[in-house]
């Protein structure tokens, strides 16, 4: 059966038209930011260089794509339209009359919709996993760098142990259907997810110890919110039923945090060892502040520049890791629309059909490129100060 085709111009216009919520959101955010950039500090300075604008625009583009995925994508990412099997880009689906802008894949699904929905998976897992890795790495890196001695030795040995492991081997051992039958992912999650609670509790305690009223409210909020998320993620038993995570997603999440936390640990430790020789730390020590107060309120804020840059790069790296997981078919469901799985599916049939491979490839590459450009611009700006 011959399918109608909207042609190259039609594809181009169609893609631009489908992304309309993204263009509007981008215009609003960028317009407002440019208008008030003088008052926005480091973020405002990003708009001074072309690299910064480009990086930010690409990142925001994918962020809004993930948010508005339901509106942008014309089709369901999982549903199959038999006539559209391996359809060329721009082929029109007869029933709905809408075009498969980037064609159909091996299983007759819309490549464009899958790419759009894939951004959701990537943009949820990559930044959150990075955030958790930052929390774990920071909470352990601060005392290691500050105290030195045996704490440092033990923690550094453990970090090097994980870092000596090739990432791919780690994933092959930690992200398997077999391991989901054992309680190991839950144990690891139980350990990792406790760190943010400890981090915030210590953060508030060291600062507001002298004001019990305020402290009680903050600690209660931390424990309540932290405990709620903790119960939801680790035991999948959220009493309100809002937070829940699939076992395979938890598995991926834990493995990614496990793989990237030692890197954060090393960076934080190095930064702390450098910063603790500064005069303001000596001043705080002379004032008789507690070690954890100094670490969290004197050292950490002064380490934020390199940490923000590292976080940016690390989200990009985590995205690459997620792609690797998808490429090897580890953890994510085989029909999942994420970019790595898409690349795996299509790269096997590259000799026959090229078009299903390119959208996820370009998407993943552009998102990581955006993050790297953003990190580069941030680094330049934070070096200027």
């Amino acid at each position, binding site marked *: 059966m011959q399918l109608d085709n909207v042609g190259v111009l039609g594809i181009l216009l169609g893609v631009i038209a489908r992304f309309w919520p993204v263009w509007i959101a981008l215009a609003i955010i960028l317009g407002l930011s440019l208008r008030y950039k003088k008052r926005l500090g480091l973020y405002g300075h990003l708009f001074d260089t072309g*690299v910064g604008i480009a990086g930010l625009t690409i990142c925001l583009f994918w962020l809004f794509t993930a948010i508005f995925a339901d509106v942008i994508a014309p089709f369901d990412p999982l549903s199959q339209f038999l006539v559209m099997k391996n359809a060329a880009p721009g082929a029109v689906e007869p029933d709905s009359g809408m075009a498969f802008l980037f064609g159909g894949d091996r299983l007759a699904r819309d490549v464009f919709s899958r790419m759009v929905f894939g951004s959701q998976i990537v943009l949820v897992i990559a930044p959150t996993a990075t955030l958790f890795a930052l929390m774990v790495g920071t909470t352990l890196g601060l005392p290691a760098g500050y105290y030195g001695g045996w704490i440092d030795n033990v923690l550094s*040995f453990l970090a*090097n*142990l994980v*870092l*000596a*492991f*090739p*990432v*791919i*081997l780690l994933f*092959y*051992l*930690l992200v*398997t*259907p*077999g*391991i989901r*039958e*054992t309680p*190991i992912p839950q144990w690891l999650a139980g350990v990792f997810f406790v760190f943010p609670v400890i981090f915030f509790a210590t953060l508030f305690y060291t600062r507001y110890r002298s004001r019990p009223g305020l402290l009680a409210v903050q600690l209660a909020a931390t424990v309540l919110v932290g405990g709620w998320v903790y119960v939801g993620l680790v035991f999948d038993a959220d009493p309100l039923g809002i937070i829940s995570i699939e076992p395979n997603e938890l598995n991926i999440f834990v493995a990614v945090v496990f793989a990237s936390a030692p890197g954060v640990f090393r960076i934080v430790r190095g930064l702390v060892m450098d910063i603790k020789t500064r005069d303001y730390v000596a001043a705080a020590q002379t004032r008789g502040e507690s070690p954890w107060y100094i670490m969290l309120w004197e050292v950490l804020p002064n380490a934020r520049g390199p940490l923000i840059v590292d976080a940016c790069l690390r989200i*990009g790296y985590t995205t*690459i890791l997620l*792609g*690797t997981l998808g*490429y*090897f078919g580890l953890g994510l469901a085989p029909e999942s629309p994420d970019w*790595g799985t898409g*690349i*795996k599916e*299509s*790269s096997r049939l*590259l*000799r026959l059909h*090229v078009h299903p*491979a*390119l959208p996820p*490839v370009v998407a*993943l*590459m552009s998102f*990581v*490129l955006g*993050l*790297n*450009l953003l990190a*580069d611009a941030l680094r330049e700006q934070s070096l200027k100060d």
Partner: protein
Amino acid sequence: MLSFILRRLGVMALTMLCLSLVVFFLVNLEPNLKKLAISQLDMRSSAEDLESWLQRNGYRQNFFVRYGQWLGVMPKQPNIDPETGQAVPRFSYCDEPAVARYSGVLQGDFGCSTKFKVPVGEKLVPALGATGILMFWVMAVMVPVSLLIGVLAGMREGSRTDRALSVVSITTTATPEYISGVIFTVIFASWLGWLNGSAASATNSGVTFYNFTLPVMTMAIYGIGYIARMTRASMVEVMTQQYIRTARLKGLSFPAVVLKHALRNALIAPFTVIMLQFPWLLTGVVIVEVMFRYQGFGFTLVEAAANNDIDLLLACSLVSVLVVLSTQLISDVGYALLNPRIRVQ
């Protein structure tokens, strides 16, 4: 210096011991043993059959006893057939001693690959050789190109060349192997037809430009950006030094200053980076070998992991951890040797 190296070697041995224990634990989890038993028998075997197979082949012994046997600090017992009373090897394709003796990793016996049905050494050595060839070509492409980009960019900081090359290197760091592999295959194999999209023929009939360029290019591109950026940073720093200004002021031409004075000092830092690049290349090797169907170490690792081939997977992890740790050691020692201002304590 000698005591530093000795201490590092000690830590290395300890790390490998810990990691092998962790891997041993993970591959011997109950679901993994089940998977192994199923792959050795067949899908329809009953739970009792699987259990008795595991029992018969010694997988139900105490965990630490088995780890000790694998390591070679505990004697490996021969497998006695209960009916005949004779010693039967557990796997027909590997000969096992008929008497109890120490035969583990420390004695050089890596065990038996259940997937490829050969002793681990016989599978692993050719695979490592194949990967060695790949690594050699990747290094031969990656190092000169990235150093050239880094030096050209860092020579005049802020110039147009610098900006352009920086964007190029950032782009390559955003291109993991499975991305560049697809893009290159589409361009060079599908559209232009210049190169072969598979390196399967390289395993048997030797490496040619036609079948080996794509894997090498794919792997090199991801590392180039990172090394180039490090080289650039180091070059920029060197170019601001006093002795560079002195050389310029005494009338040397700019190329002469760069080649004779700056280059040698600027290349110390990239040496470390290149050495530390090996762990990353290991992941790249796995992706590229699977993508281009090249039967090297990475391909073996994936096969071992996918089939829970316990002994082969353990050997693969030992090899990769050894590579990572020894490159770290070489980079530390080399850095101290190259840069006389650094003293190891």
